């Protein structure tokens, strides 16, 4: 998380940290047996990760404390249309992990709500993105062991699209923006999610309830002026999520 703050305990109780083959990622609790994350956290070189390589941590804000009590995956369900062999196509970057054991919720572990199907994302609405990914201190990027969060607004899809188009002119291999994605961030930069946060939650709050509007997916640099973080638009996947959970 760039430009954010350390999250006090129990403030983002749906936050999950994933460790997949040593790589760190984020996720979020959506039910007592289900974790939602980004598909790219669970696919390496085009191959789905084995469930045995996935370690899931939740309930605390300090990685050192989290590591003592991993939760194990029972099965992994990557969106069937996710296909990103060259790391250029993050369309459908969503996956679900079913847990071996049911979680009992408390103040430190709680699910985040799912959006209503077709829920609207209002430009400028502030969302809460969190994770154990890279942070920036004194202009140095470091991997934090404390859960951090930052509040960034939803970016109008056209602005985001322009931003991506501009980047594509100057850089190679910038992924495409699709309607299954949305952007969040500020044009001046300095507030963003970053590597290690992917799969984590971007939460909007309505009527006192946080709901999972986005999954940290990709972005060009982190917190850089004129760039935004790109998130999987969860509202587009409510049907798949419910079906997957019911069928499994």
């Amino acid at each position: 998380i760039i430009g954010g703050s350390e999250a006090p305990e129990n403030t983002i109780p749906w936050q999950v940290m994933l460790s997949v083959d040593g790589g760190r990622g984020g996720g979020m609790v959506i039910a007592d047996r289900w974790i939602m994350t980004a598909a790219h956290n669970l696919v390496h070189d085009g191959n789905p990760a084995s469930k045995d390589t996935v370690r899931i941590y939740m309930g605390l804000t300090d990685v050192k404390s989290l590591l003592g009590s991993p939760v194990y995956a029972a099965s992994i369900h990557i969106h069937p249309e996710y296909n990103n062999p060259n790391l250029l196509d993050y369309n459908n970057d969503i996956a679900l992990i079913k847990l071996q054991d049911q979680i009992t919720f408390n103040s430190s572990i709680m699910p985040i709500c799912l959006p209503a199907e077709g829920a609207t994302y209002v430009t400028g609405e502030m969302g809460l993105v969190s994770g154990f990914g890279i942070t920036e201190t004194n202009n140095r990027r470091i991997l934090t062991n404390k859960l951090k969060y930052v509040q960034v607004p939803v970016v109008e899809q056209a602005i985001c699209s322009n931003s991506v188009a501009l980047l594509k002119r100057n850089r190679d291999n910038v992924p495409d923006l699709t309607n299954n994605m949305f952007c969040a961030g500020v044009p001046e930069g300095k507030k963003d999610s970053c590597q290690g946060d992917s799969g984590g939650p971007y939460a909007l709050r309505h009527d006192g309830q946080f709901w999972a509007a986005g999954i940290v997916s990709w972005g060009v640099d982190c917190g850089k002026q004129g760039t935004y973080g790109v998130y999987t638009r969860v509202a587009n996947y409510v049907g798949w999520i419910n079906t997957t959970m019911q069928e499994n």
Partner: protein
Amino acid sequence: SWRLPEPEPVMHGAVQSPNYPQPYSPNLQEQWDLSVPEGYQIRLTFTHLDIEASAGCYYDSLTVLYDAKILGKFCGHENSADGHHPGTQPILSPGNTLTLIFQSDDSNPERHQNVGFSAQYQAIDRDECSEPEPDDGSGPLCSQICLNTLGSYVCSCHHGYELRPDQRSCMSSCGGGIFDEPEGYLFSPGYPNPPPHAVSCQYIISVEAGFTVSLNFTDNFHIESVDTEQGPNCIHHWLEVTIPEREPIKLCGGKSPGLIATNSNTVTLDYHTDDEGQSRGWSLDYSTNRVKCPIPGDVAMGRVTPILTEYFYRDYIFVRCDQGYKLMMDGEEITSFSTMCQNNGQWHLPLPECHIIDCGEPEPLLNGRWVFLSGFDNQYLSVVQYHCNEPFYTLLGGINVMFTCEADRKWRSNNDIVINPICIPVCGQPTKLLTGYQR
């Protein structure tokens, strides 16, 4: 040595002189012993008799004897002037035997050849009843009624008398024996007339166990008593009432004992008179009542049915518990209860108890719990309310879910459902919000 069999008695037959119808030979001596079954006489009828006639049938003759007694000695022929011809009248033997002896001398008259005789005999039933009393002083064959039968007779008695074991004399009938009907009428011999002397009669009233006998003597009661200072004394005549396991009661005098409730299913009455005195006797109606059982009492939280003022042998009672209670006996639950009043006046089972039912522990609720709103020990009509572990879980479909322990031992909600509630997670509402005041 062979023993010859007795000749079989026959019912009829024929006898003829030798060579009949040819003339008989001289110097004959022939005997026939006729017999018919006991109880019959022999009637002998001559179809023809032609024997040399002589005075007193001195030369040739046919002699008919019964038990060595000569019934007739015959000779001659139907039209002969001398001799003794039997004519057409049959000869009846006093008993069931008859002996015929035919004899001829050594000469026969030359001018007339006699052919002898031919006779038929048959068994005739004896009417023993009309025979005179035997001379041996044993009295008449039957003391009261004699009935002749073929070959025999039977004696019978007038009403109120019965035949003695000797099968000829009669004695006054006691009308005694065993009375096992639920009600009946008994009376002394000859009642209401005085019975013959020296009566010894026993009457046993024995009905099924579970019933008690009541004796109700009629007012017309008279058994001779001897007045003493202590009151009438039943010395010579008495009626003794014996009830098991109680002292026998001797009754006499002129006053009816009225009603005697024996409380027993067996009563023995012994009526005795001696050779003297005069008792006119007694009569009674007896009836039976069913043995009574004690009032069963009440069962707390239950009902005993039917409710009667008295309970008798073979009555059944049932116990049902009020709604929400169960039948218990000896620490075990029973599905139903009935008990019968036995013949000993006791209920065959003691009354059960009604215990309040319980529904058992309410089903546990994952991520929730239940608490009693009323009642305890999961008993009937206890009410529990389910709660989820808030604020992390909430009940699916309802805020207050209350279950009541119903009579069918199931916890039911107001909606009459039996399924348990479900706690669903609360999402997106952390207990602590990110707050800050810096602007």
